[in-house]
């Protein structure tokens, strides 16, 4: 490792623009003649549009145009799609309702777009949007997924067969039943995985521009995957042909999954620009973000785990209902199936697993991938079950886990995944040591003397990242391949531009990707720049999600670097009159191994471009591209330990210690990796203690649609974290990386809840464990009296 290479704690090159206010986010973009869009949205969770009257609004100052779903349909703009086909266990395809970018006949959730106003200023657009008159016929709203699939429930989509989207299963139910028949002990649990709102700090925004002169379209948008946006907008939504559409995702202020999807607003801005003849910008406000960004999680689950007489896990069965909201969002169908049930083996050698998932429509905001996407839900089921079982069996939670850890690799689970590497005991040991687990009883006793209930909980998670081998996901229903592309352009002076299909919106690619390149040729980090987020610059890309940028995106870069290195060596061998196999490149020099014959790196690069003296038949230039398709998922894993103190008088939980020990494979920049874990833990703690997305059960109104009502984790809700890594190298990709972006959000919720249930002595508590819920649980368990 050099001072700036792989493994070095390099400060970020992207920081300067952000700390000086020079970042360029979508809402920062302006164009001459630019107008502003404001959306008219449904105030009802379920209602038929009887009539839209835009007359008065159209006469208001500054109004350029008002467009509805009628014009959208007339222009042939297609409905939103779901890109992953899931078949029910009876082989029928998923039950997809029509999702127009602007509702034409019926609105099915509060906030659904019904019309758009384009006006000269932000304020004028808003005023006119408020003046659009809509006559509604309210319909009964269904909020509860169980009610949605109850006998006689009203259909949310007239054209869909029922509110059940699919009834899917995985695993061998006969083997599981046999295991339960011979079990010495069965642990059962009922869980709700609470619905969350992603809340990237930058609200979504889009600026669409149609250039009639060249018949060309450009859209700046808050996207994690601009190429996917271009593909979907052209191939499915018919907004613009792909070769005439440029999608730019400039600086993006956080995504967490919510900016993967191609939303109505960016489609409409681009379409409206052509319709009105002016560039059209829309910037969501926070209320719109709450109402229209795809939400996350929202599962109701019953799970049972069977053990034999010595605490060995012999079977797991899980039954989950997943609330999809009113429409199927872009990747929604994959989240509670192939990103969830395939992880239910966790870190354990479970011989038999069966999982049934029913996906359901309700009159709520669509639900899709949010940091972790399916894997936090799987980890929550498994790790609450295991901790509960340990208590029932009278074993220590660590011991029960150790007894069941997978210890040899590769390991084929009963639910598709083939784990390639790992050392679960190492992360468990590291976490227990860092947490001083053995010292807990003394700390608990000391807390009790202060009238506080102290608890400790752990969670050993696994996730599947580096999504994913294209042929494998294709066979499971994915509409796209999940490779990544890269291009390495070496300039005549030896500096290098890397173009990547991964997108960085906080992940630090501009630094970490450059570290890998700098190390390869021994050149300064400052001589490498990383470009991303512009479909006119980067040839293609599948984008950033599922902790894939390192394992897949960087692997594509490494593949391109291999080609650059091979060509540079060929040129150098020719110039130095040596055999190609004897050339080595390091420390910015290209030398004949074991001799003093050498050229500077930039001399070889220059020679490639002058073309004066190249090997016969070799093309000039030094620029290579690569596509990398992974051979397997990667399997980051780790152990999280949370210690809490609860005030029995108020029910308030304070996290007094949080420890994370993660195995991410090879780490490029430990500082960046730690930052990813910190942020993930905060989101996981938010889910466990604070964040609840609440709908009024009668009206379907989103009650928590602002920061007044939705409890975001603040600095004083959290402690400083103790994070560390253990390392087993991933054998599946050239750098041995596994991915680190989602781990924190996956591993932490069960650790927090296990600590709380340990403290209060009852398992009956759901997330978020608010003071009120904890207080009531303490009252119910009788611990309050004991503490007083």
């Amino acid at each position, binding site marked *: 490792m050099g001072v700036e290479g792989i493994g070095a704690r390099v*400060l*970020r090159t*992207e*920081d*300067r*623009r*952000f*700390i*000086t*206010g*020079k*970042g*360029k*986010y979508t*809402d*920062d973009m302006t164009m001459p003649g630019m107008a502003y869009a404001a959306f008219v949205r449904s105030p009802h969770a379920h209602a038929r549009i009887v009539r839209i009257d835009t007359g008065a609004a159209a006469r208001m100052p500054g109004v350029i145009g008002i467009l509805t779903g009628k014009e959208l349909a007339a222009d042939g703009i297609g409905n939103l799609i779901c890109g992953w086909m899931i078949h029910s266990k009876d082989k029928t395809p998923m039950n997809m309702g029509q999702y127009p970018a602007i509702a034409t006949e019926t609105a099915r959730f509060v906030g659904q777009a019904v019309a758009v106003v384009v006006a000269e*200023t*932000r*304020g004028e657009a808003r005023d006119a949007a408020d003046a659009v008159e809509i006559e509604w016929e309210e319909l009964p709203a269904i909020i509860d997924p169980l009610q949605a699939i109850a006998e006689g429930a009203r259909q949310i989509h007239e054209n869909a067969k029922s509110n059940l989207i699919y009834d899917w299963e995985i695993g061998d139910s006969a083997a599981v039943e046999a295991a339960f028949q011979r079990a010495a002990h069965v642990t059962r649990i009922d869980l709700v995985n609470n619905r969350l709102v992603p*809340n*990237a*700090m*930058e*609200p979504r925004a889009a600026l669409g521009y149609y250039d009639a002169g060249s018949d060309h379209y450009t859209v700046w948008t808050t996207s994690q995957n601009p190429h996917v946006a271009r593909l979907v907008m052209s191939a499915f939504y018919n907004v613009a042909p792909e070769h005439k559409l440029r999608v730019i995702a400039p*600086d*993006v*202020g*956080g995504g*967490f999954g919510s900016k993967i999807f191609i939303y109505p607003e960016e489609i409409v801005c681009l379409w409206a620009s052509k319709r009105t003849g002016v560039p059209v910008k829309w*910037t969501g*406000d*926070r*209320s719109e973000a709450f109402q229209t960004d795809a939400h996350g999680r929202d599962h109701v689950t019953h799970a049972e785990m069977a053990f034999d007489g010595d605490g060995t896990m012999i079977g797991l069965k899980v039954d989950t209902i997943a609330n999809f909201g009113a429409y199927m969002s872009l990747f929604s169908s994959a989240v509670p199936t192939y990103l969830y049930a395939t992880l239910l083996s966790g870190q354990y050698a479970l011989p038999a697993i069966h999982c049934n998932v029913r996906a359901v429509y309700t009159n709520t905001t669509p639900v899709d991938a949010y940091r972790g996407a399916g894997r936090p839900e799987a980890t929550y089921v498994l790790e609450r079950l295991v901790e509960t079982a340990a208590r029932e069996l009278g074993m220590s939670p660590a011991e029960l886990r150790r007894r069941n850890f997978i210890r040899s690799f590769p390991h084929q689970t009963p639910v598709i995944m083939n784990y390639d590497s790992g050392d679960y005991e190492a992360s468990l040991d590291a976490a227990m040591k860092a947490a001083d687990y053995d010292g807990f009883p003394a700390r608990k006793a000391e807390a009790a003397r202060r009238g506080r209930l102290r608890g400790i909980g752990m969670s050993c998670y696994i996730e599947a990242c580096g999504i994913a081998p294209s042929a494998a996901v294709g066979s499971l229903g994915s509409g796209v391949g999940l490779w990544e592309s890269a291009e390495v352009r070496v300039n005549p002076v030896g500096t290098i531009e890397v173009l990547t299909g991964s997108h960085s*919106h*906080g*992940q*630090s690619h501009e630094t970490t990707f450059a570290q890998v390149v700098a190390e390869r040729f021994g050149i300064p980090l400052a001589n490498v720049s990383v470009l991303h987020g512009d479909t006119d610059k980067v040839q293609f890309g599948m984008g950033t999600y599922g902790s894939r940028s390192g394992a897949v995106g960087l692997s594509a870069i490494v593949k391109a670097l291999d080609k650059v290195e091979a060509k540079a060596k060929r040129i150098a061998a020719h110039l130095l009159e040596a055999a190609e196999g004897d050339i080595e490149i390091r420390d910015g020099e290209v030398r004949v191994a074991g001799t003093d014959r050498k050229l500077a790196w930039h001399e070889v690069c220059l020679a490639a471009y002058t073309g004066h003296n190249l090997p016969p038949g070799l093309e000039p230039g030094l620029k290579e591209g690569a596509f990398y398709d992974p051979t397997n998922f990667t399997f980051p894993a780790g152990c999280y330990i949370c210690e809490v103190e609860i005030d029995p008088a108020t029910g308030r939980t304070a996290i007094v210690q949080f420890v994370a020990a993660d195995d991410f494979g090879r780490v490029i920049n430990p*500082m*960046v990796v*730690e*930052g*990813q874990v*910190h*942020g*993930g*833990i*905060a*989101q996981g703690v938010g889910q466990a203690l604070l964040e609840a997305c609440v709908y009024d059960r009668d009206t379907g109104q989103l009650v928590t649609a*602002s*920061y*007044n009502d939705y409890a*975001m*984790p*603040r*600095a*004083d809700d*959290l402690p*400083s*974290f103790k994070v560390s890594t253990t390392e087993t190298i991933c054998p599946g990709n050239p750098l041995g990386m596994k991915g680190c972006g989602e781990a*924190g959000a996956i591993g932490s919720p069960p650790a927090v809840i296990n600590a709380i249930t340990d403290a209060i002595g009852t398992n009956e508590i759901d997330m978020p464990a608010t003071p009120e819920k904890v207080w009531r649980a303490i009252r119910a368990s009788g611990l309050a009296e004991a503490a007083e």
Partner: protein
Amino acid sequence: MSRVELTVNGRSVAREVEDRTLLVHFLRDHIGLTGTHVGCDTSQCGACVVHLDGRAVKSCTVLAAQASGGEVVTIEGLAAGEDLHPVQAAFREHHGLQCGYCTPGMIMSAVDMIRRYDGQLDEKTVRHELEGNICRCTGYHNIVKAILAAAGTMRQEDMRAAAE
């Protein structure tokens, strides 16, 4: 319409704007200083914090007309040319930012916090004082570290200045 005259980062600016124009939109839309961000509509996230007459304010909660005559410092005006303010430098040094969106407001709040406490800060105080700034990326861990480090640096600089 209102005529708004302000000194922004040492430069005098004057514009005719709609009466309802917020200070943040005045800065972003009318004079092109887009470093100040809008992250919510209820004055809670703090992405829009600037200094008005030496005090940190949420510029989404101040009308431009209200601020007229005042002196505004935004994130763009914090560094002295190429030299970063100690809080900016500390955010970079301690990886106190990821996506960068909340960062301008965080830094402007932190500068104000350090000034109000005369650099005498501890972790608990910093966490409490950050109540009005939301970050979704960092879990606050490195932001807290950065602010404590910057407070130390600024204290030392003050002591050095006093000694000279």
